[in-house]
């Protein structure tokens, strides 16, 4: 396991040496398999990818998997002790502080090497914001296998890949408006009768039944 971590440190150092001015961040993976990842900024992504694909000793010529992940904005509430003036006396008062960690969308690339038979190296690109149309760089010019998968991330998450040769929807039909895999996606209320309704569907069934009763009245 520590050998894996070491390996990713050396790769990071090599990239930083070869692509000057690139911003890289390492993300440790707490699980047992220890597949750590490198976050690369969108402006350097293509250069870093090209380096990884061609460098001796690395030769990551196989981009196996491109995944989109949605990390919505998180609000954490913490009790913080703050010095404040209360009736003219400086006392320590406990206040609840709300911090909002901004959300972002991610494209995660799993890279392997067919020539040197090693991997996976996990590369991540994060968007600046959480809105539909947030941009990252497309790595399709480097690995053609990313073409269809980046289209899928655009389709299901709304992430725009700049530099992609043919960015359009893959799985949903062209006139579809939303991006289904996002955490804030609300599916349309096209409820159908289901005999063993549970949870969400049961709640909607009851609403429909109540509405029908109201309409009938």
């Amino acid at each position, binding site marked *: 396991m520590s050998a894996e971590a070491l390996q990713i440190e050396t790769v990071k150092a090599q990239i930083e040496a070869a692509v000057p001015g690139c911003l890289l961040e390492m993300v440790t993976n707490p699980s047992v398999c220890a597949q750590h990842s490198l976050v690369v900024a969108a402006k350097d992504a293509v250069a870093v990818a090209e380096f990884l694909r061609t460098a001796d000793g690395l030769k990551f010529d196989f981009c196996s998997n491109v995944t989109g992940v949605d990390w919505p904005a998180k609000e954490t509430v913490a009790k913080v002790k703050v010095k404040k003036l209360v009736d003219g006396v400086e006392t320590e008062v406990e206040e609840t502080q709300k911090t909002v960690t901004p959300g972002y969308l991610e494209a995660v690339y799993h890279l392997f090497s067919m020539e040197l038979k090693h991997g996976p190296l996990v590369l991540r690109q994060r968007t600046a914001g959480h809105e539909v149309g947030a941009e990252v760089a497309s790595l399709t010019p480097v690995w053609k296998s990313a073409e269809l998968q980046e289209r899928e991330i655009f389709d299901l998450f709304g992430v725009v890949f700049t530099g992609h040769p043919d960015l359009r929807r893959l799985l949903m039909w062209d006139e579809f408006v939303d991006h289904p895999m996002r955490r804030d996606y609300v599916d349309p209320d096209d409820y159908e*009768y*289901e*005999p*063993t*309704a*549970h*949870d969400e569907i049961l709640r909607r069934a009851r609403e429909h039944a109540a509405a029908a009763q109201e309409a009938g009245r």
Partner: protein
Amino acid sequence: MLGRGIVEGMLETARNFLGSYVSRERLTTVQYPEERLAHIENARSFPFLVYDGADWQAGMRCVSCQICEKECPPKCIYIEKSVDKKPDAVGRPQNYPKVFNIDVSVCMSCQICVEVCPFDAIKMDVEYELGAHDRFGGLLLDKQRLSKSNEYYHRIHPTEAAAVDAALAEERAKMQAKQQAAAAAAAAKAAAPVAATPSAAIPSAPATEGKA
């Protein structure tokens, strides 16, 4: 010779065709529905509820714990617990399902309900000829349609049913032993104070009587 590959291929086809008149191996078509294959023992189609004995309501093993309802991936099971209790397969008084519906058009025969049931109450059937004309009525199996006897279970899955029966018998035996031990302990406790009072309680006999 051009076409030699094709000719060799045709010899292969001829061997299969003529062979089907001579060897059973090569005649593989089963003329369903006139001919039916015996089901393989471990096959599964849809779930059913097992009951012991002759009365399907009294002998039902299901205690309405609703674990299968929670674990079912497509959520095709719907259970309503009863208010009163009846003895279960082992002898303990437990709730039973007032309503137990399985929507067979949604069920994907994954068998997870069988895996998680702690009471061996729900098992997989092998019947696949369940066509109905009414999608919701015909394919929504209620408690009665789902209940099948333990003898039926033995007929379709003999090895499994034997193992389940053995396990239940063991549990019943343990239950009985526990009950006997509890009864014996209670009897011993009832006997012991009666033996103790005559020696020590002559002066305080009116007090103990008042307490009792």
